């Protein structure tokens, strides 16, 4: 069982600067991480992320979410209890620790005009025993 004190919480940012473009982010998990078990997406402009965002996410060269997976499905608002905001993905081995994100911005009538925004990815891993 994991407790908060043995969970590694990491934050990675991707800057979305132009509309209707794919941005790639490549990050590395903490070397003390053993299994990745959850993630969460937020933004400094949540409406843009909610309506315009979709992404593919790979960890250790294993596809977690396929291309066109909408960002809104990985977001949590204040209406969700803090302990339940993380999207659980099972226990994914750290392996080489490489996290790759292909974030795609797509125009949407409910989030126009486009303004640059930041996609913030939080990753939660269990620490090595």
């Amino acid at each position: 069982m994991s407790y908060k004190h043995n969970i590694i919480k990491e934050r990675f940012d991707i800057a979305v600067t132009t509309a209707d473009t794919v941005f790639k982010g490549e990050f590395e998990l903490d070397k003390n991480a053993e299994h990745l078990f959850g993630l969460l997406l937020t933004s400094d402009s949540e409406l843009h992320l909610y309506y315009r965002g979709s992404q593919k996410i790979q960890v250790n060269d294993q596809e977690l979410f396929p291309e066109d997976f909408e960002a809104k499905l990985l977001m949590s608002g204040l209406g969700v209890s803090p302990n339940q905001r993380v999207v659980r993905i099972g226990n994914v081995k750290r392996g080489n620790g490489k996290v790759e994100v292909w974030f795609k911005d797509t125009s949407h009538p409910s989030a126009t005009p486009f303004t640059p925004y930041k996609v913030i990815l939080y990753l939660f891993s269990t620490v090595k025993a």
Partner: protein
Amino acid sequence: MHKILIHTEEITANGSKLQLQIKLPETIEKVTGVFAGITRLPGVAGPADPADINAGSLWLRIPELRDVFYADRVQELNHLLPEEAIQELMGQAMQPEWWFSGTRYTFFDVTVPVEDTLIEGFYEDESSFATVHYRLNIYLNLYLK
């Protein structure tokens, strides 16, 4: 091993009825979750009443079992509060924001053992959009051998 499969269809006419087939990977063992939603395409206005988020109905079935395992209304996901009354009350005082009303979407849990690698579906548009042009997204959570 888990894998998420996304099947998309473009709906372009009011009252469209669509029969669809979703090919699954050869190594599939069972389907463990379903989620469906729509995304309006750029330049297309939404319904006159923003609380009217129903877009249509979707049925999914396994042909070998001749059985429907998923049937639900498909909605246009938006950031507004789910309760119409609260929404109206809030609307007068402030613009509703996503972080306030935000929920977390979860897959509808199912356990559907699959032998053939095909799912059949039927979708009917029931939206009240002035112009119908949107993408139907069906997410399937798969458990692979």
